[in-house]
């Protein structure tokens, strides 16, 4: 990232905000696209050496046979991997595998790098012995296995999933966490999910007009349960059976899971086997003692289901320092649990001035949106920040604003502006600013 743009000449007219932020159109408009010129051909006829001299060995012999299931390059295995938090105690600890956002591009997270939080381990489910039943306040209860679900007209949609514990270290930790982005932001990922709209199945059962909630339970060893509001269930909740074009992986709920777009991840019950239609929430452990947000006055927010508007710069970030002065692309991800991202602004001076970043389309509702903005780093200290705004005008708050409204013990739903400081040597650190 340090080499590619170094010859670009900067015109002051392209500056968009303080400390080197450039117009988001700069890369689009400029003809900086490499400028490779055709090398003049040597006179090959005058030489008798084999033509392949100097080529790498993989160019000079046929490669491997095709694998049944493709894998990443062996050179990437150590570099791009999920960070799995070590268990702090015994086996009952929740485990989380975090997405290395700073090493990925685009908006789709490879399935094997999708974040995972598990409270009772990953069940090894035989699909021939797994069925999901819809019952309760319905005219007639039905059950389905994955092959039966497969027969319905499916929908495929791209959605982000985020654990509401993502970024939680920023609530109470007195000092900014310096682990790579894994720890602060690695519990959000984006996928294409394919499944049957839950409303289709509910219609077949005949839901009572008095129904208000649906209690979803999984087949994991904790029978993890959460209450889903009926309006959500009838809107865009799906029973997903595919992720990124292939059947769900065991860790993502194989053979079937609930997917509530834009909601905190815990509500999207994996390995779902029971949907109980009723008029009240179940008040399960994970919607009372966990996934409730403790406020400064002793109260707690409950059923804070919808994810907030949020963004983070993934490059540069604290695992990716700047090696030399020059033109960089600042890029990152923005998302909102309510709808589409409308705008992302970036600051290079700790929030004094802001410039609008380019959003890479298509911009999809409740999905990660990538933003980009050129930045000329001239070797001066900087604080990089991004601020997302969604189509409903919800603005990502500053850390100060968030803590003022909620206190420091909320644990869940931290979504404030994230700050990367860059010193004169180009080292990047997480700071509270």
């Amino acid at each position, binding site marked *: 990232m340090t080499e590619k743009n170094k010859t670009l000449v900067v015109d002051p007219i392209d500056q968009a905000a303080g400390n080197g932020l450039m117009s988001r159109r700069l890369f689009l408009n400029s003809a900086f696209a490499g400028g490779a010129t055709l090398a003049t051909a040597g006179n090959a006829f005058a030489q008798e050496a084999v033509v392949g001299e100097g080529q790498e060995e993989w160019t000079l012999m046929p490669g491997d046979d095709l694998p049944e299931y493709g894998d990443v390059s062996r050179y990437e295995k150590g570099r791009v991997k999920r960070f799995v938090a070590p268990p702090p105690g015994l086996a009952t600890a929740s485990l989380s595998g975090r997405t290395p956002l700073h090493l990925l591009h685009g908006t789709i997270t490879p399935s094997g790098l999708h974040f995972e939080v598990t409270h009772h381990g990953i069940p090894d489910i035989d699909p021939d012995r797994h069925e999901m039943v819809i019952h309760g306040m319905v005219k007639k209860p039905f059950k*389905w296995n994955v092959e*039966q679900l497969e027969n319905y007209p499916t929908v495929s949609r791209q959605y982000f999933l985020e654990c509401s514990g993502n970024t939680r270290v920023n609530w109470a930790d007195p000092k900014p966490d310096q682990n790579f982005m894994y720890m602060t932001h690695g519990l959000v990922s984006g996928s294409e999910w394919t499944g049957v709209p839950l409303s289709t199945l509910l219609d077949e059962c005949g839901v009572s007009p008095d129904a208000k909630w649906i209690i979803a*339970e999984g087949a994991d060893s904790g029978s993890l349960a959460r209450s889903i509001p009926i309006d959500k269930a009838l809107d865009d909740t799906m029973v997903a059976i595919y992720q990124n074009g292939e059947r769900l992986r065991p860790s993502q709920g194989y053979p079937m899971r609930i997917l509530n777009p834009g909601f905190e991840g815990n509500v999207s019950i994996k390995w779902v086997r029971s949907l109980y239609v009723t008029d009240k929430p179940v008040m399960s452990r994970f919607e009372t003692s966990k996934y409730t947000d403790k406020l400064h006055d002793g109260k*707690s*927010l409950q059923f804070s289901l919808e994810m907030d508007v949020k963004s983070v710069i993934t490059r540069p970030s604290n695992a990716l320092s700047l090696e030399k002065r020059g033109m960089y692309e600042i890029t990152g991800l923005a998302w909102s649990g309510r709808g589409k991202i409308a705008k992302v602004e970036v600051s290079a001076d700790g929030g004094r001035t802001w410039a609008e970043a380019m959003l890479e389309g298509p911009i999809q509702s409740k999905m990660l949106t990538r933003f980009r903005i050129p930045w000329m780093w001239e070797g001066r200290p900087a604080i990089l920040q991004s601020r997302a705004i969604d189509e409903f005008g919800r603005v990502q708050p500053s850390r100060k604003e968030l803590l003022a*409204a909620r206190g420091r*013990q909320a644990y869940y739903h931290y979504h404030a502006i994230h700050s990367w400081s860059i010193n004169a040597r180009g080292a990047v650190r997480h700071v509270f600013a």
Partner: protein
Amino acid sequence: MFLRKILMASLLLCGATITVAQESRFGTPATQADIDKRFWSTFPDGENLPDGQGTAMLGKPLFEEQCTICHGTPEARGENDVLFGGHGTIGTDKALATVGSYWPYATTVFNYIRKAMPYTAPMSMTNSEYYSITAYLLYENGIIGEGDVINKETLPDVKMPNAGNFIMAYPEVPEEYSIQK
């Protein structure tokens, strides 16, 4: 226009007929046994609580045998979730959310341990044993008496100290705590 109305009416009628029939294109009608096997939720009003009963006195040895290894005792914390104490800490910088200090419903305690505990062998005890361990947790948190009988009739009546402190945040976080003014 009139014909169209008749057509619409008959279409609607057809739709209604189909709805009443309640057919699933590819699903199978579910039996009560299908439901019972998969439905573990119990509710604060007592719905779906099973038969059986217990007391804290009966629950103490069960807790010590099955739970202490991870959760410690009222006197000494274990490595995993603290279940005792913490009263009065919620809302402070030293918040300790336990069964006694935080959980709003006693039915949730029973529901969770009955389906998920012991961690390495969930559902391996009887309903009366799970009622007894629930009673022990409530007793050690000062919520019920040592000999109080806990069953599907009495458990919903147990008042948890922090029950009144939860605020519904769906579909909107109340203005007072909203970031979006």
